[in-house]
């Protein structure tokens, strides 16, 4: 038998394993909007008894399932992979399913509102179409010429690593809708589209870099970025978004990528 290695528990593990029920009272202040009922948006408070280790998404579900079935938001996987539930929580873009209540000061009311810069359709649901259109506009697919090899294309581990960070994007729109430039000008491609262009521009197998750079050289392209780093702060996947945008800008100047 292997030697036991688990004789000492960290305090964090003990805390994670506790089964003692612990709930606190938290106020959620949610921005409501339903044009079927009223053209005006309003704030509504909900008081909950909830375990602070639960997610904001759990709280929204508790409200929807127990207090007000009309509260509307998108969600699916509930663990930060599908990108459905980006919202503005206490003024910052986050995924509701990756934000634990204890981490956002439950002593004060927690505000929840739709992400900014896209049209709100109902409560926390926005029109994602302009966002996905910008994504589609950067030609987010591998472009190659010549005959396909019989086996896989070869790519060194270093070349693969070059664009690893930007392959993590889940298209949640947290970055794009945290960008002040995008808020003021919806024509701007926005960080997410540039991230996804980066993912291909720096892929050694791809031959469409020049075309994508031309698209991003547009007046609504990368030059609109003012490096406020909101996007990097907002990314729930930890992508260095601003750095990726800078690398695309540099590639435009040097034409080397």
């Amino acid at each position: 038998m292997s030697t036991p290695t688990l004789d000492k528990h960290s305090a964090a593990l003990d805390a994670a394993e506790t089964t003692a029920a612990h709930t606190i009272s938290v106020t959620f202040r949610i921005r409501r909007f339903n044009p079927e009922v009223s053209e005006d948006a309003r704030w509504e408070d909900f008081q909950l008894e909830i375990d602070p280790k639960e997610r904001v998404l759990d709280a929204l579900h508790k409200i929807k399932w127990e207090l007000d079935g009309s509260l509307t938001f998108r969600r699916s996987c509930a663990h930060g992979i599908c990108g459905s539930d980006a919202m503005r929580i206490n003024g910052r873009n986050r995924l509701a399913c990756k934000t634990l209540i204890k981490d956002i000061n439950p002593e004060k009311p927690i505000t929840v509102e739709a992400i900014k810069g896209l049209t709100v359709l109902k409560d926390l649901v926005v029109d994602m179409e302009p966002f996905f259109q910008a994504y589609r506009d950067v030609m987010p697919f591998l472009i190659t010429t010549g005959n396909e090899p019989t086996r896989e294309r070869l790519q060194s581990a270093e070349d693969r690593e070059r664009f690893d960070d930007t392959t993590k994007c889940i298209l949640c729109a947290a970055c794009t809708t945290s960008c002040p430039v995008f808020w003021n000008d919806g024509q701007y491609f926005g960080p997410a589209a540039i991230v996804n262009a980066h993912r291909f521009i720096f892929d050694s197998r791809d031959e469409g870099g020049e075309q994508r750079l031309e698209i991003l050289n547009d007046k609504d392209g990368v030059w609109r970025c003012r490096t406020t780093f909101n996007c990097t702060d907002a990314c729930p996947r930890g992508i260095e978004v601003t750095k990726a945008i800078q690398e695309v800008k540099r590639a435009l100047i040097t034409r080397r990528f």
Partner: protein
Amino acid sequence: MQIHKYDTVIVGAGGAGMRAAIEATKRSRTAVLTKLYPTRSHTGAAQGGMAAALANVEDDNWEWHTFDTVKGGDYLVDQDAAEILAKEAIDSVLDLEKMGLPFNRTPEGRIDQRRFGGHSRNHGEAPVRRSCYAADRTGHMILQTLYQNCVKEGVEFFNEFYVLDQLITEVDGVKRSAGVVAYELATGEIHIFQAKAVIYASGGCGKFFKVTSNAHTLTGDGQAAVYRRGLPLEDMEFFQFHPTGIWRMGILLTEGARGEGGILRNKDGERFMEKYAPVMKDLASRDVVSRSIYTEIREGRGCGPEGDHVYLDLTHLPPEQLDAKLPDITEFARTYLGIEPYTDPIPIQPTAHYAMGGIPTNVEGEVLADNTTVVPGLYAAGEVACVSVHGANRLGTNSLLDINVFGRRAGIAAAEYAATADYVELPEDPAALVAEQVERLRNATGGERVTEIRKELQETMDANVMVFRTEQTIKTAVEKIGELKERYRNVAIQDKGKRFNTDLLEAIELGNLLDLAEVMAVSALARKESRGGHYREDYPNRDDVNFMRHTMAYREVGADGSESIRLDYKPVVQTRYQPMERKY
């Protein structure tokens, strides 16, 4: 009500749906109807990899892969289908690479491969490196790559359209697919999609369990739609419980963690899998590992104050390896448990993960109306379908493979069928069933709540038809589900509006879960043996004499309108491999 006409309609935009769409769009006028935006599909949550005997890092071949798949499925696998799966795996992976998928690479620049549960060298000698992967986000990369190629091919999507009914028209005594009925979330409008061919690729139904790796949206809508129209569901009693879900939350921690060297330990720190699977140890098949975990827990060797979980120990692996190969799951441990997997073991328990059963199809993806008759124009692929390549237990990395191999096959077959077929006449008042369902829920005033019924359903499923089952527990579940179905008739919703009414859709989804849970429990009750993911403590052995056969469950409606489930059985296709006792 709007009526649309397409050659091919695909229901669902996960891996199987989009792989089908790439083929179908090239060959026919195709629409993809999806209840989520395509990149939100749960394929994106798959982590560890996609199996293919590329032999990039060590000796391997598709025949060994076929054998492992058949053995992993406890011989309930249709062996002709498993052979196709393993053979076409190689081109499937290469196709994805050519579409742009960023696989991890070997030092020579080839696609890297790693170990995974149940995949072995030469018929069980030792673990083999067969899983092609992209860190621990292989599913994410497959979903993104397929969506990117759908953008490239100009695939037409109808996002946030919920398909709620399958239209069948009987022509000369033959049931034919005429199209589907969809509900548009944004507007509440009902749409009819008349189509020459329909492909279901709408995923699983794991949300009838409480502790599950499945998304909130995995509610078996596709299975329920065809089942209600009198078509059978195959092998629904076989559900996979993945050994390593985050304790209580069920969030998946990939088997790739054990493929990279992670070890399961009980409260004494013992590597207990050595007792249960001396050769494959922590990399035995998932059903074996999940039962072993619960045996440890039942015998008092579980961890934590209540002894209700065990540990996944990665602390002996170098942090650089965890960062490079398992970045997402280590992040989950930090985010949701507040622990550091470099130094802390991770509390885990088995989590309801994957439906081996589903809509029966042949290897071309054509849906079956009984053991042999095809429903012209109707196809299914992926978790919603049962080919059956997974039999009684799916091997890890075979589902990302399944969606690519059979998604592609269904896409080609459906589009080719549509190229020569005529439209089948729509039934009279095609929207009737959905319109009635929606109106009834919108106007309901009963006292029952969706959340309460769903909670009770999930609790009874976890308690009674999970890893261990007996006649008594299954009967308890059947009875409880019956009671919940009665109560569901009185369910009411609060949101009466048309715009983005997710309150209404959750009620409809619950109805689907109830129907499918009942099929699962009734199928499980009749299978008086233990095989793969279906373990009966009162019948602990496999019984090839009586149960080497697929279950086929049909919904029957009596003259008085009463519903019941009729079970029938279908032979298993055996080619190369005779059933043997399964040891790891």
